[in-house]
């Protein structure tokens, strides 16, 4: 049993790998963080019943575009994955696939009580209980279901976190991939694999940590080599 403190809200802010000597770099980073917090494209994926409160939040009445939040269609275009409510096991696989397809920095918001602890479906055989076991969750918005105001309030909290650079759980997914993969394997079986090569990505972008690889990733590799892009080749 793991507890809430494992949710990397409390993780310390990572010091930049190398000290930036350029005085403008700080300003630049600030600008980037500002832009990232003020332009959040959320994935148009209604995973559960909480999705019914998103249209009001997006449309004329509450108009999230005021805050720079827009729905987007495919995971490639999106920054935020809203897990709106209970996640059945079948959906959870798609959510993980979708999450891994999103470009970082990416954020996960668990909306509704069901994402926290199964909610009113706690005894259901078909729904996963703790979303943060399988994905790094930035923020939970509790309620069944949270009102549009609550959703927007949650979004604003996330914006503040992004701008201050405090919340970077997406890095945690790379750094502790083994942990997340282990939980996924526990639920889906040992031969679980997504098309995205998370370890490769972590290494490519220098995001790998000591816990990126471990016993669970070895199980993964035992079944199959990761799907590597077709290399351009002349011979």
């Amino acid at each position, binding site marked *: 049993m793991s507890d809430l403190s494992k949710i990397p809200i409390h993780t310390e802010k990572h010091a930049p790998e190398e000290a930036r000597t350029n005085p403008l770099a700080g300003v630049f980073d600030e600008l980037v963080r500002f832009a990232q917090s*003020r332009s959040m494209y959320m994935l148009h994926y209604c995973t559960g019943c909480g999705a019914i409160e998103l249209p009001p939040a997006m449309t004329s009445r509450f108009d999230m*575009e005021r805050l720079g939040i827009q729905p987007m*269609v*495919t995971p490639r275009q999106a920054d935020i994955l809203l897990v709106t409510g209970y996640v059945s096991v079948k959906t959870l696989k798609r959510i993980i696939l979708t999450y891994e397809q999103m*470009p970082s920095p990416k954020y996960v918001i668990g909306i509704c009580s069901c994402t926290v602890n199964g909610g009113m479906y706690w005894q259901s055989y078909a729904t996963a209980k703790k979303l943060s076991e399988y994905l790094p969750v930035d923020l939970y918005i509790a309620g069944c279901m949270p009102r549009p105001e609550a959703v927007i309030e949650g979004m604003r909290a996330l914006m503040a976190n992004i701008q201050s650079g405090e919340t970077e759980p997406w890095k945690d997914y790379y750094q502790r991939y083994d942990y997340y993969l282990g939980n996924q394997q526990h639920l889906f079986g040992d031969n679980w694999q997504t098309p995205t090569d998370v370890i490769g990505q972590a290494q490519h972008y220098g995001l790998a940590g000591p816990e990126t690889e471990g016993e669970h990733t070895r199980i993964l590799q035992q079944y199959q080599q990761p799907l590597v892009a077709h290399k351009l080749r002349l011979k």
Partner: protein
Amino acid sequence: MEIGKRIADIILMPIVAFVIGLFMVLMLRKIAAKLQRRVGPPFFQPLIDIIKFYSKTTQVSHGLLHDIGIIMAVGGYLAAESLLPVPGMDGLSDKGGIITLTYFLMIPSLGLALGVGQCANPNGSIGISRALTAMLAYDIPFVIVIFGVAWHYGTTDLSEMISLQQAQGWGAFEMPLLALAGLFALQGMMGKQPFEIYVAPAEIATGPMVEMGGKYMGGLFVMQCFQLYTAGVLYTTLFLGGGTHWLDFLIKIFAVVAIPMMIAFTFPRYRTEDMLRLMWKWPVLAGLLGIAFVMY
């Protein structure tokens, strides 16, 4: 024209185009918001979106061609802007006229088509096939318009057209039918409803954009700025007398872009064949009649 001025023009014109394009995107989104009875995005939202996309940490690529596609898409527009004369800057408009410009504008489309094709997503490929079909649809009235205008002014040089219009009066008054046909083509060129068939989120999940994320999407956003700007300036140059100075020029181009936007958010999209039927019927008829009036 002296060489220094020309180089300065070539450097400045895309920058101006981008900045104006950003405002046009803002206007687009504000118009949408107003029609949909809401507030709409903040002032700097278009720019913030672009910065956000370019500053993504992980960028998902589908290979070299995906990269090249986006480079071609943005680069093609950067180059094409120097062919569009604006007040005080003629750029390269004497080196290649309206026909050249029309073909230059195909380079970004080609680049995008290559990049999207490389993504190996049928949604994207369907989107491209629809986009090319849409091009076939709106280019026919468009070339009729080009012919009529070029014949009327006896030149394909855009800056010469502007100076002729400033002497004779706006093209829209002399060639109203062509101006009308041009409006249809403009709507199609911007790819807005009812001619939005190649994006169609509910059918093919935004078509060409389906695998674009990070700086790839950012590139497309930059391209959208250029696209709106180009459409506005081109129409203004052909029919509204171009610009004598920046103030009236800006008013004209924003007004030109606003018209399709108003239409866009009050119409659903046509199916491909319905779009073809519409485009090949009324605008072509109007255009041919317009040419007949111009020529005889």
